[in-house]
């Protein structure tokens, strides 16, 4: 596939006076992406635009080169596992997945064998003849994944797929998704739980308030945040001297020492200024730094800082 996986140009979607998503410009090459944002951030609206369930109020959406609203044949290349539950209590998994696969235009016998294969992949072979109403939430989740992959789409979209899964289920789904990516398929995984996404992909789209705040991998997102508030943890000897040299700086907003004063959490309004000052201060003969790191180097930290910037809170408080 030479086309862009997703190409969104100036896309906004309004629900009367409410903005679902606003002014999204997004061009993504085929690959795996985590769509991350808190509940109500606009993830589902964005997915609905990508899958053609919704038309943009402004702008254009193209998936693999096609408009999913007008050129519905492209839906054969997309598998969607939505966040909503399956409510077909009297139908069993094989009937339902076969039905969903056949709706893509496959003959019944082909759809049947594809459904069996998909259910096998998600570990539902043993239970596929039982009515869906008798399944646990985790089992229904697997069946939803099976209907999304049975027709072998290029792009798999999952909306909060880990909901209701027990730890083993989570592990198995994560393994499957890693394998899915490894075989050259594309993935968009929407979640509000960052560490689940970090286990599967390193490329992120951070969404909040209907806007994409940042895209890229964790380090790119962090580098975007240079010049913004941060909390940095330094460890070593001579930290009193190190900090003394910074006390008069306007960008220093707080310091918290450990009991034996060999570790300090330093809060700054501008992390670039801090790192410049740190380089000079670290040359002092009394200072011997052992480590310098963001107090929480995870994507969660980066995301929290992005939200802080997005809300206009430019200075952190002690």
């Amino acid at each position: 596939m030479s086309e862009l996986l997703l190409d969104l140009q100036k896309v906004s979607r309004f629900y009367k006076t409410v903005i679902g998503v606003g002014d999204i410009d997004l061009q993504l090459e085929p690959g795996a992406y985590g769509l991350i944002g808190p509940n109500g951030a606009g993830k589902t609206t964005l997915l609905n635009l990508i899958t053609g369930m919704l038309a943009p109020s402004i702008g254009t959406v193209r998936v693999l080169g096609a408009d999913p609203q007008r050129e519905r044949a492209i839906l054969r290349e997309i598998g969607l596992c939505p966040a909503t539950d399956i409510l077909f209590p009297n139908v069993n998994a094989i009937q339902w997945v076969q039905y969903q696969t056949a709706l893509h235009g496959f003959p019944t016998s082909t759809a049947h064998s594809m459904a069996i294969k998909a259910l096998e992949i998600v570990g539902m072979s043993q239970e596929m003849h039982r009515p869906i109403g008798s399944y646990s939430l985790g089992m229904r989740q697997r069946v939803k994944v099976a209907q999304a992959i049975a027709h072998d789409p290029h792009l798999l979209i999952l909306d909060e797929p880990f909901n209701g899964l027990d730890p083993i289920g989570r592990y198995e789904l994560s393994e499957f998704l890693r394998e899915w990516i490894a075989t050259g398929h594309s993935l968009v995984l929407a979640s509000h739980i960052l560490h689940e996404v970090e286990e599967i992909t390193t490329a992120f789209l951070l969404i909040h308030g209907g806007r994409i705040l940042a895209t890229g991998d964790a380090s790119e997102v962090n580098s975007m945040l240079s010049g913004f508030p941060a909390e940095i943890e330094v460890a070593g000897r001579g930290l009193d001297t190190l900090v003394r040299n910074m006390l008069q700086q306007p960008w220093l907003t707080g310091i918290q020492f450990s009991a034996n004063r060999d570790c300090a959490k330093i809060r700054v309004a501008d992390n670039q200024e801090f790192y410049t000052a740190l380089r000079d201060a670290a040359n002092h003969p009394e200072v011997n730094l052992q480590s310098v790191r963001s107090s929480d180097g995870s994507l969660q930290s980066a995301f929290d800082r992005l939200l802080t910037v997005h809300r206009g809170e430019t200075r952190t408080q002690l």
Partner: protein
Amino acid sequence: MQEKSTDDGLIQAVWQVARFEAARTFTFGRIAIWLALIALPTVLIATTQLQSRGQIPETGLLMTAYVLVVQVGCMMGLVLWATPAVGGEVESQTWVYIAMRPWGRVAVVLGKYIVAVGWTLSASIPSAIGVSLLIGSQGLVTLVWMVALVFLSTVAYAALYMLIGVVFSRRATVFSVIYSLIVEGAVSGIPAAICEITVSYRLRSLLVEWSGNSELQATAQQIYGSVSPPIHIAVILAYSALLLSIATVVVHVKEYAIEANNAV
């Protein structure tokens, strides 16, 4: 895993929806309704005849049979099956899966239309047989025109309720009942050109022609004038095709179940 889907995707999809939905008709509740629709008109007419000791005039029996089987029976079956075609999917949160298939939206309308027509005919035809045996002396002739009327009624009202269900996916049943009472009930009885927009008028005109009942024919001639049966049949079939086509267009473009409060 890659297999090729067939080019006749819409036909396949319609067939799959019809197959899937037909399999879902075999539940206790639905079979009970089906049996009730078959039995009710026959039981009511038999009871009435027994109580009146055969004193009810044939015209009265004919009209009662027509109303019970062709109008009420067919309408009830179709309100249950055709009206919630899309609303049911939306409420059970399965619409998103349907809409993610290239032909899913249109296939749901056409596939469920086929099942609604099939299910209603399977109840209304036995019902027509039952009442035909009870009324009049021309049992077989009555049966033939009664079945023809049941067929036309089912085909037309299924398309009508399908369109109402597609346009008003929420409270579609309420809208269907209101429409039936006002338009198919009241408006169809108005002795003016406006009654010609209703299916009821066409079906009643065919009843008058085919039953050969002179009393009915004299009254109808006075009120509605005379239109030949082939025209009525053509209008009913064209009307059904038009409504169903509009329903497929609406379902293709309409956005369902996506509200600001649950989609953001």
